[in-house]
């Protein structure tokens, strides 16, 4: 019975070959729930999964702050998603403010959105277009990789 339900459900849909992310909802640092579609960029959206305890994440964030300012006029929006649990939530806001982050930061404290976007490690960066298609996926961060990420954003803006 349940297999019939699933099968008929699948048949009733037209499958997409694209790699789209769903319109997820998370709380922001002011405790309000926002959806991805409400805050995404007009052109590109760069999503950075991070945590206060993650050393490479902390190293990469100042680079994203610079890029956020640099691409401000190109409708490129940065969004940070912190996977810190309740244990570290008190630290998230002052921490990112001290790093000069001006872009929206959301909290995925149970990592459910992280799992749904098929992210298994932090830091992971996704670049998404206005149709929510994932155009670029980058796991981890080493010094110097910000150059590659910046070039990728420029390349995608030119397409």
């Amino acid at each position, binding site marked *: 019975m349940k297999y019939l339900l699933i099968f008929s459900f*699948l048949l009733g*849909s037209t*499958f997409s070959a694209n790699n789209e992310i769903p319109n997820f909802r998370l709380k922001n640092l002011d*405790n309000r729930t926002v959806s991805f579609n409400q805050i995404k960029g007009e052109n590109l959206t760069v999503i950075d999964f991070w945590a206060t305890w993650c050393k490479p994440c902390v190293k990469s964030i100042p680079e994203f702050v610079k890029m956020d300012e640099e691409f401000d006029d190109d409708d490129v929006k940065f969004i940070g998603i912190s996977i810190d649990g309740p244990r*570290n939530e008190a630290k998230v806001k002052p921490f990112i*403010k001290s790093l000069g982050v001006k872009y929206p930061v959301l909290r995925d404290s149970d990592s459910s959105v992280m799992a*749904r976007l098929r992210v298994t490690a932090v830091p992971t960066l996704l670049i998404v277009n206005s149709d929510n298609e994932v155009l670029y996926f980058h796991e981890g961060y080493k010094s110097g990789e910000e150059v590659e990420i910046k070039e990728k954003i420029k390349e995608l803006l030119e397409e």
Partner: protein
Amino acid sequence: MKYIARFFVFAIIFGFCGRPVLAQIYGTNTFEFQFGNLPFEEDTDLTTSYNQLNLYYDSDKISLFGKFEQFFTPFKSRNYFDVTQKRFQFQDDNLRIRIGNFYETIGSGLLLRSYDIPGSVFESDFYRTRYAFFRDLEGIAFDADLDWAEIKAVRAEPLQNDLPPNFEPDSVRRPDLVEALQATFFPTDDLSVGAAFMRVNTPFSSDYSEFVSLISSVQLPASFQVFSEYAFNTSSDIFSFSRNQSYALYAGLNYYKGSFGGSFEYKNYNNFRLGSSGFNDPPSLIKEHTHPVLNRSTHVPNTANERGIQVEAFYSFDGGHSLVANYASTINNVARRSRFFEYFLEGTYKVNDNLTLKSFADYAKDDPKGQDNRISLGLIADKGFQNSKNIILDVQYQNFDELGQSDKSENVFASLSFGFSSGLSVSAVFESTTEPGLTDNPNTFPEIETDPRTWFGLNSLYKINASNSVALFIGTRRGGPACTSGICYEILDFEGAELRITTRF
């Protein structure tokens, strides 16, 4: 015949006769193969394979999810194939309904917290079975967002995740039934106030335990934010804070100005381990470290009785340098009074665009573990080269006085990692200890080994492309407590070879 009729009914409902919706199936797969065993295990060279498939289906406002896990060993009793999670979800801009397995947290986790650690594979020491590490809820959840309020309602059974998926009877893995309702109101942009009511039915009891939580958050002028949550059993006196009552108070303050940020938190928990599975998780107020010698030395809250504070301050200097200072203090008063405190200081110095030095110093007293004068030091050098290549040297040392031991115990951690632009990274990890509980081989009792014990392993990771990666470990790996995303669990030692293949599709 009736199934065919039902098929057509569902097909009509879901789209055959309606407007086709754009849908996609996607997922992740993790395959892990181990050849080896626990270092002191007599049956050496145990071969195991574990596979985890997460499958998602999204179509407009509807999504389906399934997690399929398989574990295979030469021992039949440990093997299983199971659909360990399944979920139906409806979501639009203001409303979400979930049926099946899902995650939800009430307030700061004083009453209820569930979590997922994506990519983790946990091995139970007792059952020697491997499975994904998460604590989910199984049931139904509803949440709605309005401009001025948010409401969530849950009726579900939390997972007791120290029991593997093949544990029989399965009902024992979800012993408690939780029904919770939380409402949060936003009278102004800077103020939120809320309340939660939860009732719990535990096994072998027809009665319900009832709990209430009061939650508030205020953004004050000059970048101060104050937040608090007070939860209590309704059979206890509200705000009595006496030893025989059941309550949990968590409050905090944070502040930022320019490149400075800081937080202060307070906790006071008493008789507050909820349900038979302990599905709540009040904030521990202990610094979460990723440095291995400190990560495994963490303090896990004892909600039978615990109070304490945590203060943290960070400053980001121009040029990429930073400083983090943390102080945490906790007192438990259960059978006897015990104290944990920790001072932590970490500095990052960016010598130039290609070289970063990080060092930390930590001093702690840990009565619950019987450790005193615990000193931990570390130095990490990260040197980058052209084309995204880099080398990281990480050296850490720890010593402490252990209860009943005349000599200090010592721990050493050292790793050297190379990252290449091709997507390949390799590292060598060395660890040693003189901790009596770890140097002794339990199989040789009554003989007690005291020689230092060492571990050495080689890790390699190759990212084939954005969707596929292969990781290989060869050698010996130290286990012990580990904390990820604020969740602490026990990792077993391992000796042998381990191959992990991760795929996104």
